[in-house]
């Protein structure tokens, strides 16, 4: 039984050429990739991603991603969601930059203030990377799943991975339809090993972990929570 994919976070920047905020996303992402968190992050090239780069898309499906956009159009976040899944974190520079457009310099050449925003955004990205990986690392202690019994409501399978190994999945009945959730058996095993009983605190943590690998809309959250916690309770009962 494979483990969860090795801990890394994908950074996808819009690199928009028309506004300085686009250049800021590019430079901030590169700063994280090259110096702040070089071993913990992977760059996802947005043009390649959009053009059909399967390696990048597969990576973004199985690893948490941070989308960094220059403006509210959120091209990087929307592209990621379209082709792989909702990013774990979405940063929009012009919502965070404290200097107005003219103070940042031009898209081609940022001002000193613009470079300071680059540093601030890079620090934010690095912090988010740490948060995401801390989540994953705490859950990685645990035995491999021995095997989950299939029930009428849930089916255990494997999601194909481009490396040829397979990430376990579980299909649940959620709000009257079948939903396949990536990595759920492994998450259950890790939470169980960590001694987490099926309660509200565990529910919060588990849902946060599930969201790293699966896209869940806010509207569906309650029904997902119910189904996942029910399944986790059954998993814990079987493991006794």
């Amino acid at each position: 039984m494979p483990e969860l994919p090795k801990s890394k976070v994908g950074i996808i920047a819009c690199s928009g050429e028309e506004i300085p905020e686009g250049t800021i996303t590019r430079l901030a992402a590169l700063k994280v990739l090259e110096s702040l968190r070089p071993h913990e992050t992977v760059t996802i090239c947005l043009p390649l991603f959009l053009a059909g780069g399967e390696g990048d898309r597969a990576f973004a499906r199985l690893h948490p991603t941070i989308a960094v956009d220059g403006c509210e159009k959120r091209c990087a976040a929307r592209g990621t969601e379209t082709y792989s899944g909702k990013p774990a974190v979405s940063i929009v520079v012009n919502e965070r930059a404290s200097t107005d457009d003219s103070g940042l310099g031009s898209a081609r050449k940022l001002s000193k203030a613009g470079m300071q925003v680059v540093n601030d955004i890079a620090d934010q990205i690095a912090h988010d990377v740490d948060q995401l990986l801390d989540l994953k690392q705490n859950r990685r202690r645990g035995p491999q799943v021995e095997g989950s019994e299939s029930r009428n409501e849930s089916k255990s399978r494997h999601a194909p991975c481009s490396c040829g190994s397979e990430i376990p999945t579980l299909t649940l009945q959620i709000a009257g339809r079948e939903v396949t959730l990536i990595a759920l058996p492994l998450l259950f095993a890790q939470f169980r090993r960590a001694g987490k009983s099926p309660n509200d605190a565990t529910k919060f943590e588990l849902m946060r972990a599930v969201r790293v690998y699966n896209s869940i809309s806010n509207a569906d959250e309650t029904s997902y929570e119910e189904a996942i916690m029910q399944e986790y309770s059954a998993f814990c009962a079987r493991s006794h």
Partner: protein
Amino acid sequence: MKGKVLIVPCSGIGKSLGSVAREGSYAVTEELCPDRTRLMPLALLVLGEKETRTELSSAAAITIDGCVKACAAKVVEGAGGTVVHALQVLDVCRRHPNVKPSRISELDNNGHKLARALAEEVRVLVDSIQEEVPHA
């Protein structure tokens, strides 16, 4: 063909030639042919906005790709654009063999030279698209 020519760089983040494509595009649209070209961000094409698609479908595009995967050319074609010239920075590299850029985030001297050479080639292509004679 009249009207502004769209310049669409890939701006790929993983390679230095992506940065060269980006800088070369700025040189074309801001210095060499500012009134005859417009830079179109590739990322915008993912949104599928009507305005962008209309502009794309009614103009000639020159795509500039930093690697052989040719993402800008593919995405523009997929979005309904007319790619009149699909430039590869690697080909410009071959024509200037001693000019090798080494950085991505900030172009070094070689990177800027290559970007300039690229921009000059694009200018010639813009001229040919618009059937204008270059000024002396």
